[in-house]
């Protein structure tokens, strides 16, 4: 394992994808920090990335990791790794090498210093090459550490960090109806790559997996498309595969006070290394598409608690109107049913608990019975899952009318450390120092 090259000025020795674009005459559109995306008007958030174009670069260094409040990109490649070495020094060296590679790739450069085509003919290239000529595409690479990195199934302290495991990283309980597959769940380290070009996201994960050979092994991975949440007011609320707008009441990048209260681990919450970080819960939720599609519109809207067209709460006119959970219809029944998804998930019904969701649709082909193997890859960031995801999901799992059409297949829980500050910093430095 080589030391990460921390000298910004020497990184361009490989072919810079961004530079290649510029040379090719694409002009300023490919250059970070120049073009301003339409509609990306900010209310004073700290994420300068929201002003990038879809092709531009999102800054890698910062107080928090990119890929959380960054306006949700269109594509996802998510991977969970098992750490297969027992050697702490090798794991640390990998985290350093990964950080350097991630900094390069998010800037639109090759994964390695030599690059996909710059090396000697006898050696395999240190970048796999499929992103050559592509712009950064707002690639973000976000890393998290799972409970099993701290202690294995036998309770052993694997890397001398067991005493630094945050209490908030408590194993999730079994929720009613869970049909989790262990081989698709958990993992010691996760990497979330989001980009506006699927090839750029896949390139990032593929190269990190390759760099990690011998230290980590891919446990499971998931491709996603069509973001199902907006994480910024500049973004329209997208639709999930049920055809409904999803994430209307999501935490958004502009809500600075709420983000402090609900998203970022604060000093004093737990171990110091997590201050400025966030806890990630992933759930692969299969949707029973065909049976859903056969259900009447009124039933679908009753299950969700919103109209399918505008996304307005039932009984209201516009998407962002606050739902009224008390109002009853002419028939004396609650307009938003006791079992409606929006009621059970709403902060007002959960002691104010909120999540920052940035999940993606998935279609993994079909299932052999002629049905789409499809659904939602749910991704939620939060300050403390014990106070946020766990109580919310407990209520949903018990009562949500939507459960008839859902199967939870996989579950993941990760502590995502704060941002990499500068070229001398690396993922997990405070945890392993």
């Amino acid at each position, binding site marked *: 394992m080589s030391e990460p090259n921390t000298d910004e000025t020497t990184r361009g020795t490989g072919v810079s994808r961004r530079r290649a674009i510029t040379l090719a005459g694409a002009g300023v559109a490919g250059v970070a920090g120049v073009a301003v995306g339409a509609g990306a008007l900010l209310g004073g958030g700290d994420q300068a990335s929201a002003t990038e174009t879809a092709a531009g670069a999102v800054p890698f260094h910062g107080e928090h990791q990119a890929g959380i409040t960054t306006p949700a990109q269109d594509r996802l490649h998510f991977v969970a790794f098992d750490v*297969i070495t027992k050697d702490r020094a090798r794991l640390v060296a990998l985290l350093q090498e990964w950080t350097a590679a991630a900094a390069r790739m998010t800037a639109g450069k090759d994964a390695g210093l030599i690059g996909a085509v710059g*090396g*000697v*003919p*006898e*050696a*395999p290239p240190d970048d796999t090459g499929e992103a050559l000529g592509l712009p950064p595409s707002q690639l973000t690479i976000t890393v998290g550490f799972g409970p099993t990195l701290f202690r294995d199934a036998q309770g052993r302290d694997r890397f001398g960090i067991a005493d630094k495991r945050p209490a908030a990283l408590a194993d999730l309980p079994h929720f009613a109806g869970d049909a989790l597959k262990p081989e698709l769940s958990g993992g010691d380290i996760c990497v979330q790559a989001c980009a506006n070009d699927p090839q750029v996201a896949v390139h990032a994960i593929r190269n990190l997996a*390759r760099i990690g*050979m*011998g*230290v980590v*092994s891919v446990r499971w991975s998931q491709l996603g498309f069509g973001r199902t949440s907006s994480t910024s007011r500049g973004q329209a609320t997208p639709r999930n595969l049920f055809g409904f707008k999803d994430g209307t009441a999501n935490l958004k990048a502009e809500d600075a006070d709420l983000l402090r209260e609900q998203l970022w681990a604060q000093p004093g919450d737990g171990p110091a290394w997590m201050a400025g970080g966030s806890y990630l819960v992933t759930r692969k939720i299969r949707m029973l598409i065909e049976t859903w599609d056969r259900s009447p519109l009124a039933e679908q809207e009753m299950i969700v608690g919103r109209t399918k067209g505008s996304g307005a709460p039932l009984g209201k006119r516009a998407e962002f109107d606050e739902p009224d959970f008390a109002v009853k219809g002419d028939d004396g029944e609650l307009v938003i049913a006791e079992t409606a998804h929006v009621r059970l998930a709403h902060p007002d019904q959960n002691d104010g608990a909120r999540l920052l969701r940035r999940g993606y649709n998935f279609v993994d082909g079909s299932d052999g019975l002629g049905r789409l193997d499809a659904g939602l890859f749910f991704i939620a960031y939060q300050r403390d899952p014990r106070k946020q995801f766990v109580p919310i999901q407990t209520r949903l799992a018990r009562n949500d009318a939507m459960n008839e059409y859902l199967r939870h297949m996989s579950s993941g829980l990760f502590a995502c450390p704060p941002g990499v500050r500068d070229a001398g910093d690396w993922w997990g430095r405070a945890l392993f120092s």
Partner: protein
Amino acid sequence: MRTTRFVVPAAAGVLAVAGLAGCGGGDDSDAKADGPIAVKATDSACEVGATEIVAGQVTFKVTNSGSKVNEFYVYAAGDRVMGEVENIAPGLSRELRVELPAGTYETACKPGMSGRGIRGALKVSGTAATVAPDAALGQATASYQRYVQSQTAALLTKTEEFVAAVKANDVARAKDLYPVARTYWERIEPVAESFGDLDPKIDGREEVVEEGMPFTGFHRIEKDLWTTGDVSKDGAIADQLLVDVKAIVAKANAEKLTPLQLANGAKALLDEVASGKITGEEERYSHTDLWDFNANLEGSKAAIAALRPALEQRSPDLVKQLDTEFANVEAMLGKHRAGDGWKLHTQLSKTELKELSDSINALAEPISKVAAVVAR
């Protein structure tokens, strides 16, 4: 069986070897040892008559008084084979002649032809000239040629026995011999495969045989042995297998691989494991894939060992990494020993196969860097 061929870059000629040192044979050195050193090999011991000797040409006389077939090796650091005799049947003696410069070595008997063997130290003293970098590379070709010759000799013998068993319709014996004969094939597969026309006849799998070409060779007989258990009609196929193996042995023995070819061969053998053996595709009827896995691994290690003196001079860190990862794969694979052989592919769980796959990946990545080190 693999689909890609050895890459032989045009520039490889630059690295081809001239004036090899240590080719063995003929050189009447002053430091020559007196008389053969006796080695008494049994199923549980390996007594070497002398453990401190003088540099030069050395002869070992290995007598197998055990009940298992034995092998005898002289290893330099990193298990680089300086010389070996394979296939010493119980009750027989064989001689090994080997040129040993001053240094520290290990001797090993391998009763049952498996595992690390019963090791002993061997100290060779005398004048030891430091090998210049280019000469170190030059020795690689000769060193690997010795290895190929030892393997082809055993391949021929074991194929003869296998063919005899098939023709005698002795299904049980043929099944026992099948993975053993293939071990010698799989160890030097990249060399054998450089002869494109013979490889599919000897080692072609059913799905890669082209239209109009008969399905012959090891895998055809494998299919008959393990599916119908009837090889009574396979006499001609068995005869042809032996003819083809003889042809390839003659060609392989004459082949001198450049250091760059050795580096690529070491990697190619691991690619074989990753793509054909982990998946159970290679031995789909006998499920003896782990035998091939082990043989590919040994062959890869032998190629790296031949390059070792040069690699130690050019990239000692890479050598360390390779040693670690080879040891790791060996430990992972070692869990699946069964007697003197290996468990069947079908006896391994998905988790166990993934563990093996991870360890091969961990080794293959640093091995993929060897070629560039050799070429610079």
